[in-house]
C-alpha cells in the first residue's frame, strides 16, 4: 500500500506533460486527484496509528546488499506525509492557475509530482539507504523546480546554490547513516526503533551526530547555511510555498525528530540543536523584518520557524516536543497560505515590494481574509492554532530545568516579537495600508487561486477552536513516536492566568513597538549588512576557488598533444599492471610448444618488419599502409588460430581506419618529425616495456588457463543454457551482456561526443 502511495507520484510525473497537452485547462485539477487520493488513503490509517499501531512494509530492492525498499508508517511519518500530500494537492491546483499559459507547465507538474513523491518517500522510508536516496531525490527535484525559469541567470544560480549546499549536506548524511547502520548493526530504521536502540555510548556516536547534523542543518536552512533559502525564492511561488515552507526544508527537522529516540538524550545532541536552533530562530526573525520583498520576508520567517523547531527538539522535554509538533503543523498551514497569498498579490499587481503595496483588501477580499487568518495564526494570537503552538513554546522554555530557563525564554520572546512585527509588515500594510496599487483586473481570481491561500488558513482557525480532535488523532501519535512512549495529550486555548499568558502580552507589546518603527530599523540596519563576510560570500568564495582548481588541473593534465596522451595511457597501464603482476601471487612463465609452421613464421616476420617501417616512414601514407600490414597480418593470425569472429572484426576495422584516413588526410598538417632524439629513445623504451609486459601477461595466462573454470563453463553451457553455438557471440550477448551494454553505451557517448564537437559548434568556429 505505502509503496504505491510513494511511487505513484513518480508514475504520474511521467505522464503529466501529456495530460497537460491533452487537457490544458483542467490539468491542474485532474492531476491534483493523485495527491488528494494519497491524502485520503493515508488519513484512513490515522485511527489505526492513533491507537498505537504501526504499519511496516518491506520489498526486496537489492537483496544481495541488504538494501530493502521498506516503509514505516507511525504517528510522526503519518503527520508529515499528510502535510506533504494535503498541501501538495492545493499546490498542484494552484499551479494550474498561477502558471496558466506557461509553455513548460506540463514539465512543471512533472517536477512537482516527482518532488512530492520523493518527499513522501523520505518521510515514509524505513531503510537507511532508502532514506538517503529519497533525501537526494528531493534535492534533485527541488533543483529543477527552483531553476524552472532557467532562462534567468538568477534562477539558475539559486538552483545551483540550493543543490550544492543541500548536496554537500546529503553526502555528509550518507556517511552518517552508514556509520549508524554499522553501529546499530542494521539498515532498518524500524528495527532500530523497535529495539529501543540508543547509540549514545557507541565509539562512532560523535561522528554520527556531526554528520547527520551536517545533513539536517543544510537541508533545513539552519545558520550558517540559511542563505540558500531566501535565494531559492527565485523559483515560482507554488514552489516556494511547497518546498520552502511546508515540506522540503522540514526534511531536516523530520530526520532530527525521527532519530531523536536513537541518538538523542546527550549534551552533544540536545545542546547543539538548542543553540543552533536559537540562533537561527532569532536571526531568521530579525532578517525577515528587514525585507521589503514579500517572498523574501516569508523565506526568512521560514528560517525562523525551522530554527524554532530545532530549538524545541533540542530542549527535548515532553512539553517541548508537543510544542514542536503543534508548531510544525501551525507553521505548515499558515506559511503555505501566506506564500500562495503572496503569489496572488504578485499575480494581480505585478509587484511583491511591500513599499509599493497598500489597500488591496477592497479589491481582493477573499485573499485578504486568508492573509488575515493566516497572519493571526503566525502572530500566535487566540483563537488560532498558532496561539496554542506559541503558548507551548513559552511553556517549554519557562519550565526547562536549570539556569538557562530565563535565557531560553528571552530568546523565544525576542524571536516571537520580531516575527509578529514582520507579520504586520506582511499583512497590515499591503491589505489595509493607504492605497498604492490597484490590480489591473486582467487576471480574475478563480477558485484555483483562492482555494490554496484560504483553506489552510481556515484550517488553522478551526484547529484552534476545536483543538481536542487534532490533538488526539495527529499530535499524540507523533509525539509518542518521538518520545518512544505512549502519550495522552490534551490541548486547550485557555489555561487560566499563567506566566505564559503574561509572556504573550509582553511579546505583543514589544512587537507593537518594533512594528511602529520597522521602516526606520530597516533603513538603519542596511549599514550593518554583512556583505563580504557573510555565509553567502563564503559560498561564493569556495565556489570560485573550486573553479580555479578545476581550471588549473585541466591545464596541467590536458596538454593537447596526442602523443602525450598515448604515452600517459601506456605508462599508466605498464605501471599498474606490472605492479599487480609483481606484487600478486608468484607466477610461472609457460613456454608453449614451438611447432611454428612456415607460413606463420613468414607472417610474423612480415608484421615485425611492417612495424619497423611504420616507425621509420617518411610520409604519413606509408606509415598508414605499414600499420595496415600489421593489422591484416594479425587478422590472418586470428584465422589461423580459429577465431573467425575476431578476424572479421579486425579486417573491417582495418578497412574503416583506411577510409577514415582518406577523409582526414587533406586536413592534416605536413608530416614532420617533431620529437627530439631523446624523446625517441624514451618512446622506444616505453614501447619495448609495453611489449615485454604484454608478452609476459600472455605467457602467464597460458599457465593459468589449465585451472580456469570460466571457459569450460562457457563451452558447456553455451548451447544448453543460452541456445547458441557461437561461444564468442553468446558471451557477448548473454553471459556478459552487462559488459556489452556498458560498451555500447560508451560507444554511443563517443558518437554523441564526436557529433557535438563537429556538428554543434557555432558557425563562426567552423
Amino acid at each position, binding site marked *: 500500500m505505502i509503496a504505491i502511495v510513494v511511487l505513484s507520484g513518480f508514475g504520474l510525473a511521467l505522464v503529466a506533460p501529456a495530460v497537460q497537452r491533452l487537457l490544458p485547462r483542467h490539468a491542474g485539477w485532474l492531476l491534483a486527484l493523485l495527491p488528494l487520493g494519497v491524502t485520503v488513503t493515508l488519513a484512513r490509517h490515522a485511527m489505526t496509528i492513533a491507537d498505537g499501531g504501526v504499519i511496516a512494509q518491506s520489498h526486496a530492492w537489492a537483496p544481495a546488499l541488504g538494501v530493502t525498499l521498506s516503509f514505516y508508517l507511525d504517528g510522526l511519518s503519518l503527520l508529515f506525509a499528510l502535510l506533504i500530500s494535503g498541501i501538495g494537492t492545493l499546490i498542484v491546483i494552484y499551479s494550474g492557475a498561477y502558471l496558466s499559459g506557461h509553455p513548460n507547465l506540463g514539465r512543471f507538474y512533472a517536477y512537482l509530482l516527482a518532488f512530492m513523491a520523493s518527499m513522501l518517500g523520505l518521510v515514509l522510508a524505513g531503510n537507511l539507504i532508502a532514506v538517503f536516496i529519497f533525501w537526494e531525490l528531493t534535492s534533485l527535484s527541488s533543483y529543477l523546480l527552483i531553476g524552472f525559469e532557467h532562462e534567468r541567470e538568477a534562477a539558475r544560480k539559486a538552483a545551483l546554490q540550493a543543490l550544492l549546499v543541500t548536496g554537500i549536506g546529503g553526502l555528509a548524511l550518507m556517511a552518517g547513516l552508514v556509520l549508524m547502520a554499522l553501529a546499530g548493526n542494521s539498515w532498518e530504521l524500524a528495527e532500530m526503533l523497535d529495539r529501543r536502540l540508543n547509540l549514545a555510548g557507541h565509539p562512532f556516536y560523535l561522528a554520527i551526530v556531526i554528520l547527520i547534523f551536517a545533513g539536517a542543518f543544510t537541508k533545513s536552512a539552519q545558520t550558517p547555511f540559511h542563505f540558500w533559502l531566501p535565494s531559492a525564492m527565485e523559483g515560482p511561488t507554488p514552489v516556494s510555498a511547497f518546498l520552502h515552507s511546508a515540506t522540503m526544508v522540514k526534511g531536516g527537522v523530520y530526520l532530527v525528530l525521527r532519530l531523536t529516540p536513537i541518538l538523542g538524550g546527550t549534551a552533544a545532541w540536545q545542546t547543539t540543536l538548542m543553540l543552533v536552533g536559537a540562533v537561527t530562530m532569532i536571526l531568521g526573525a530579525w532578517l525577515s523584518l528587514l525585507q521589503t520583498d514579500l517572498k523574501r520576508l516569508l523565506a526568512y520567517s521560514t528560517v525562523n520557524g525551522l530554527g524554532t523547531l530545532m530549538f524545541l527538539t533540542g530542549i527535548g522535554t515532553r512539553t517541548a516536543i508537543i510544542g514542536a509538533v503543534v508548531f510544525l503543523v501551525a507553521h505548515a498551514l499558515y506559511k503555505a497560505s501566506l506564500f500562495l497569498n503572496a503569489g496572488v498579490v504578485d499575480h494581480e499587481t505585478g509587484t511583491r515590494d511591500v513599499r509599493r503595496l497598500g489597500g488591496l483588501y477592497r479589491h481582493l477580499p477573499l485573499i485578504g481574509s486568508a492573509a488575515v487568518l493566516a497572519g493571526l495564526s503566525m502572530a500566535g494570537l487566540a483563537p488560532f492554532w498558532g496561539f496554542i503552538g506559541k503558548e507551548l513554546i513559552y511553556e517549554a522554555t519557562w519550565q526547562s530545568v536549570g539556569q538557562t530557563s530565563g535565557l531560553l525564554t528571552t530568546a523565544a520572546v525576542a524571536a516571537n516579537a520580531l516575527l509578529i512585527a514582520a507579520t504586520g509588515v506582511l499583512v497590515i500594510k499591503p491589505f489595509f495600508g493607504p492605497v498604492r496599487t490597484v490590480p489591473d483586473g486582467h487576471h480574475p481570481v478563480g477558485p484555483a487561486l483562492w482555494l490554496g491561500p484560504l483553506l489552510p488558513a481556515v484550517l488553522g482557525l478551526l484547529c484552534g477552536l476545536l483543538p481536542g480532535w487534532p490533538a488526539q488523532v495527529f499530535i499524540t501519535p507523533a509525539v509518542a513516536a518521538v518520545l518512544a512512549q505512549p502519550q495522552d495529550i490534551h490541548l486547550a486555548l485557555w489555561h487560566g492566568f499563567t506566566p505564559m499568558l503574561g509572556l504573550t502580552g509582553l511579546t505583543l507589546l514589544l512587537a507593537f513597538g518594533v512594528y511602529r518603527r520597522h521602516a526606520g530599523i530597516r533603513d538603519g540596519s542596511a549599514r550593518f549588512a554583512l556583505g563580504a563576510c557573510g555565509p553567502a560570500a563564503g559560498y561564493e568564495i569556495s565556489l570560485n576557488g573550486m573553479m580555479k582548481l578545476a581550471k588549473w588541473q585541466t591545464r596541467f593534465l590536458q596538454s593537447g598533444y596526442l602523443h602525450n596522451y598515448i604515452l600517459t595511457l601506456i605508462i599508466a597501464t605498464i605501471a599498474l599492471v606490472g605492479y599487480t603482476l609483481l606484487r600478486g601471487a608468484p607466477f610461472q612463465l609457460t613456454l608453449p610448444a614451438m611447432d611454428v609452421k612456415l607460413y606463420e613464421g613468414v607472417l610474423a616476420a612480415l608484421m615485425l618488419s611492417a612495424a619497423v617501417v611504420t616507425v621509420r616512414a617518411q610520409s604519413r601514407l606509408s606509415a598508414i599502409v605499414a600499420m595496415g600490414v600489421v593489422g591484416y597480418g594479425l587478422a590472418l593470425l586470428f584465422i589461423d588460430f580459429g577465431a573467425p569472429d575476431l578476424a572479421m572484426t579486425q579486417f573491417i576495422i582495418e578497412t574503416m581506419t583506411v*577510409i577514415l584516413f582518406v577523409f582526414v588526410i587533406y*586536413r592534416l598538417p605536413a608530416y614532420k618529425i617533431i620529437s627530439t632524439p631523446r624523446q625517441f629513445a624514451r618512446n622506444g623504451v616505453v614501447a619495448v616495456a609495453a611489449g615485454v609486459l604484454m608478452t609476459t601477461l600472455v605467457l602467464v595466462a597460458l599457465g593459468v588457463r589449465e585451472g580456469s573454470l570460466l571457459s569450460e563453463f562457457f563451452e558447456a553451457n553455451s548451447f544448453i543454457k543460452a541456445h547458441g*553455438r*557461437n561461444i564468442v557471440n553468446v558471451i*557477448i*550477448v*548473454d553471459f556478459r*551482456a552487462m559488459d556489452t551494454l556498458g560498451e*555500447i553505451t560508451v560507444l554511443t557517448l563517443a558518437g554523441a561526443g564526436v557529433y557535438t564537437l*563537429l556538428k554543434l559548434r557555432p558557425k563562426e568556429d567552423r
Partner: protein
Amino acid sequence: MTSVILATATRYLMPMLLLFSAFLLFRGHNLPGGGFIGGLVAAATFILHSLVFGVGETRKILRVRPVKLMGLGLLIAMASGLVGVFTRAPFLTGKWYELVLGQGDKWHVGTPVFFDVGVYLVVIGATLIIILSLAEED
C-alpha cells in the same frame, strides 16, 4: 571519384552488402558473425556509397539520422534486458520462446537476439556519425 565502374558496382553491391550484414547479424548466435560485425559491414556499405555519391546522397538514402539510429539501438538493447526483469529474473537474463509457425515449424526467438540487434544499430549509428561528420567537415 566519378568512376563509372565504381558507381555502377556500388549500386549493385549495396543491397547485397546490406543483406550480408543482416545475414551476419542473425547467424551470429550459432556461427561467426553477430551484431558488432554485422553493424560494421552495414556502416562500411553506407560509407562506400558516400565515397562514390557524396555524403549528401548517403544521408538521403539513410532517411533516419545516425544519431537516432544509435539511440534506438541502445534503447532496444536496454529493453531486451527488461524482459528478464518483468519475469522476476535479474536484468539482462536471456529469455527464449518458441513460436509455432504451423506445420510443425518452430521459430526460436530470444531476448539476446534483440540485444544483438541493439548492438548492430549502435555500431552502425556511431560509425556513421563519426565518419560522415568527418567527411562533411569543410
